[in-house]
């Protein structure tokens, strides 16, 4: 299956969804006005990937900013990953946050409490 590679913009994150390696990354800023439209290809991709998921799927989320409408879409991505996990494959989410960015750490913890996938909280230097 094809990978997804989308270059980041000031409003949308860099996306790398690689079926061959099982690595899924969302990095940068996610503040589009129409997040549902932006995230739809990734959500669809995960649906297809679910049937051929790698033994381990590694998810890297490294966001500087995200708006409310993105927060729902990111949850949709996590819910798709949760299905993969429930299907017996290993999934881990690495949630990166800049040191001192308590809001971003807290956002990760919020997701962690909603989603049944292990989260790794990783502090990065500014």
């Amino acid at each position: 299956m094809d990978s997804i590679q989308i270059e980041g913009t000031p409003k949308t994150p860099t996306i790398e969804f690689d079926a061959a390696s099982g690595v899924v990354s969302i990095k940068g800023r996610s503040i589009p006005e129409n997040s549902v439209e932006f995230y739809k290809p990734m959500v669809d991709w995960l649906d297809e990937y679910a049937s051929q998921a790698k033994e381990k799927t590694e998810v890297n989320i490294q966001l500087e900013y995200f708006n409310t409408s993105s927060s729902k879409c990111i949850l949709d991505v996590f819910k798709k990953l949760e299905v993969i996990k429930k299907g017996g494959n290993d999934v881990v989410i690495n949630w990166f946050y800049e040191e001192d960015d308590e809001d971003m750490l807290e956002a990760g913890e919020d997701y962690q409490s909603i989603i049944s996938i292990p989260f790794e909280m990783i502090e990065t230097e500014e």
Partner: protein
Amino acid sequence: MDFQFDNWYQDLTKSNVIMSYQGEITSELIEKTLDDIELVLKEKGLNKKKVKKAYNAIVEELQNLYHHALNAPGQSPDKKFGAFCIKVKDDIVDIVTGNYVIFNVVQLLKDRMDQINILSKEDLKLLYKKILSNNSFSDKGGGGLGMVDLAKRTGSKLQYDFFEFDEKYYFFELTIRV
């Protein structure tokens, strides 16, 4: 006295303004403002954490404006009309938005904001997670997640005011302090 937009805007932009705007609200305007404002906040000497918090709140408030602003009464219905003003004084950032709303949403908005304003930090967190995980909502947001998120992230109350314009329209002013 009936609401006069020009007087309101003049009062609003009297002091400590780092950016302000009134007129048509478009996606391009929001994009340009968000591109510029981060640098302007940094130039005011605010620390990185404060800039980040303020930027987040500005994104939410301006996008709220974009999604919910109506036309100005008597003006073309295709043109969303609104105003915003970002002020900085002594390390405190105030983000003010203003737009017209139809009279019948005023009570709903007031109730929602009052409910959010009495919640503790912990309760806001719980409510945020509840809305996030339970509600299906459109690109416009909905479910009040944006307002809850603003209150949760900034730790401040939603300060609002409604001014009667005529029997159909009210003017809604919202201030978030960071």
